[in-house]
């Protein structure tokens, strides 16, 4: 893996003011989610009956206001953000792993297997993921593993396609033939030679996948198919907030604006990253 393209990309990235700004915003939001709740005098569960559905302010130490039950929205929102981000990261790794494995095998083995695997991907790409999730729900009920698996399924298709493309082009190269000739077995070849060379573009697309995953998880939670009580993600909070819009608008605005800020900056950063690597599609 040559260092050249990475350094060039890093330079292009630093020059892209929008992308850098977006990255800073993301870092800020993540830091807020991790550290924020500790800074607030309030905690997650306490019901403050004196300040129900309050607007944000400093006087009553509820910086984002409170919800219908008097729970502090600052802490609730940031805890929800934590859940969303954690799910995003973990499911992202699942998705990455799935896509990597699938694509590497398809690209390396080739032939009928490759054809079959690609047909499978084609059919899967046509179906909206939500149907798949709904199926899983109908079949397995509220199983957290099934949920994780479904969320991880976001984006693995694209990852698999890219990995397969890269693998196909690498397979022809001489050092692979040398490895085969020297008797190395297929899984070892895939692991030692194919994967390191494919990581580059995959990481770039991972930056696209993480916001998609966070979005999908929020979407599912919003519909009631996602994370279950007592844990709440941003999606759940937004659903609650949408229901109480007239009486307590900040129940919607706090998690809603946080999610929007996160999505927009992740998207802008992802665009910048792909531009830097010359892979804008």
């Amino acid at each position, binding site marked *: 893996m040559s260092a050249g393209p990475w350094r060039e990309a890093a330079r292009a990235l630093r020059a892209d003011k929008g992308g850098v700004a977006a990255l800073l915003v993301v870092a800020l939001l993540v830091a807020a989610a991790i550290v924020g709740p500790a800074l607030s005098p309030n905690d997650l569960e306490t019901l403050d009956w004196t300040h129900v559905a309050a607007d944000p302010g400093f006087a009553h130490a509820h910086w984002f206001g409170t919800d219908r039950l008097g729970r502090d929205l600052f802490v609730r929102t940031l805890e929800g953000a934590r859940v969303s981000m954690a799910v995003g990261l973990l499911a992202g790794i699942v998705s990455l792993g799935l896509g990597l494995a699938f694509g590497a095998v398809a690209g390396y083995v080739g032939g009928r297997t490759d054809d079959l695997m690609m047909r499978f991907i084609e059919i899967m790409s046509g179906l*909206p*993921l939500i149907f798949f999730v709904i199926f899983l*729900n*109908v079949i397995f009920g509220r199983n957290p593993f099934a949920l994780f698996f479904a969320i991880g399924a976001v984006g693995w298709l694209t990852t698999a396609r890219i990995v397969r493309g890269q693998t196909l082009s690498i397979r022809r190269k001489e050092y692979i033939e040398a490895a085969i000739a020297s008797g190395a077995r297929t899984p070892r070849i895939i692991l030692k030679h194919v994967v390191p060379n494919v990581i580059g573009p995959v990481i770039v697309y991972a930056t696209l996948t993480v916001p998609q995953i966070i979005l999908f998880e929020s979407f599912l939670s919003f519909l009631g198919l996602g994370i279950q009580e007592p844990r709440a993600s941003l*999606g759940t909070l937004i659903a609650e907030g*949408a229901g109480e*819009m007239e009486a307590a608008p900040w129940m919607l605005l706090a998690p809603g604006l946080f999610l929007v800020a996160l999505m927009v900056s992740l*998207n802008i950063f992802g665009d910048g990253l792909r531009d830097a690597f010359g892979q804008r599609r």
Partner: protein
Amino acid sequence: MLRYFLRRLAGAIPTLFIIVTLSFFLVRVAPGGPFDEERSLPPEIAANLQRAYGLDQPIWTQYARYVRGVLHGDFGPSFRYKDFTVTELIAQGFPVTFELGSIAFGLALALGIPLGAFAALHRNSSAGYAAVSLATLGIAIPSFVLLPLLALLFGIYLRWLPVAGWEAGSIRHLALPVVALSLPPLAYIARLTRGGMLEVLGSPFIRTALSKGLPLRTVIARHALRPALVPVAGYLAPAVASIMTGSLVVESIAGLPGIGRYLVQGAINRDYTLVLGMVILYSALLIAMGLVVDLLYAWLDPRVRFGQ
């Protein structure tokens, strides 16, 4: 052209059939049944229920009955909404969802393409940058956040539009849901149009058209637009999928009596036939869209018609 279309149609039917079959068996494979949620029933009543819904028959018989039913437009009874068949539920809700979805789709195209073309033609001006930023925002902001925010702004603070609810034939009730639903595909279409246009404008045949003394608007409309829209054509089926997905949420927030809520409720209630019926319906729509897109490709680029 006709032969091309028929060939594609012939390929679509087996796909639909596979989807029906797979869905049927997957759903049956699931542990537990639709009545598990209820209080435990005395065994005779449970057996009666099983018989009434045909669940005591061997699986192949159930499958055959189901397929026969589907071919006649009968998706069976809803397990949850006891008084209704799935077909009745669909008939009630589909017109609303269809109206919502098709207006959103049309809007996304009608506004997205000009926005993208504008962004391409003014790429180095502030207006162009503004257009691009608008598109980026549209892609990033989820519709289930946008719609409540819009409802908050226009419904509660400004009081221009109703917050939720639906009346037959009322545009005011559809306005906010349509906007929220159409924005992500609109933004994406704008982006694709901009990219496609920029690429086409660098082509030799555009240089030829300009050298013929044709005004820019003619060159764009007659020579540049069709090839520039090829990426958009490729996005149409995913756009429909995205609108379908978005409608689930938009209908629930805005209180629209469409079929989206049936899919979600069906999932939560484990209502087999309802979910099955929904999936078949949505898949058929997507496949139909795919066919339309194929035809569109052939029109946009004549070389496709000749199998090149």
